């Protein structure tokens, strides 16, 4: 059954993204929200981790959280899709369940 994983913490501060990517089944989706959006940025020490994850996971980042923190599409790793709250709802509905990595 497909899972939407949400990660809301910075990958530089906490281990939640690392843990999520380790346990997420191939084919599932990961949505970066709140301080989790920093993982979507190009050129960071977490970039390699996220790029590797893109091989078998779909990765999304919440646009409103990205903009609040001063970033936009052009700073986001290629392959990571910027979405809005409506799309967050769609992802939660399309997947069979939601797993918040708190």
């Amino acid at each position: 059954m497909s899972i939407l994983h949400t990660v809301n913490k910075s990958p530089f501060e906490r281990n939640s993204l690392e843990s999520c990517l380790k346990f997420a089944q191939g084919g599932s989706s990961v949505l970066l929200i709140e301080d989790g959006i920093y993982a979507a940025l190009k050129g960071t020490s977490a970039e390699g981790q996220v790029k590797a994850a893109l091989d078998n996971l779909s990765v999304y980042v919440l646009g409103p959280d990205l903009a609040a923190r001063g970033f936009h599409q052009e700073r986001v790793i290629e392959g990571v899709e910027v979405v809005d709250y409506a799309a967050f709802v769609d992802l939660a509905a399309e997947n069979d369940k939601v797993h918040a990595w708190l």
Partner: protein
Amino acid sequence: MSEVVKKYLYVNRKAPYGTIYAWESLEVVLIGAAFDQEVSLMFLDDGVFQLTKGQDTTGIGMKNFSPTYRSLGDYEVKNIYVDRNSLESRGLTQDDLVKVAWEDWESGEEKEDIVEVVDSARVTEHMDESDVIFSF
């Protein structure tokens, strides 16, 4: 209380006492027993510290809720999984963890300890097979 039977997975990733999440998560499990769902608990990352033996909270004045884990078998909890990597990278083995006995009141079937240390692939599988994932 309900005819729907879902597979509930409680994911525990946080250490006890520093924050209340471990304890209040356990309170949901206890209450949840009345709803006759199929309940499993997963301990990974710092969540494995919740299960350590010999917790003594006298010096910090907090309630020691460690004994509650040992009684989970009486609360309809069927499976307790612990991620092996999480345990090992924290210098722990299953010997450091409490045992949770289990008995089926109808069939009389007994298990001395339902705490099961599993590999990462199994953690992923159990997440995949569950209907609802609780996290705190």
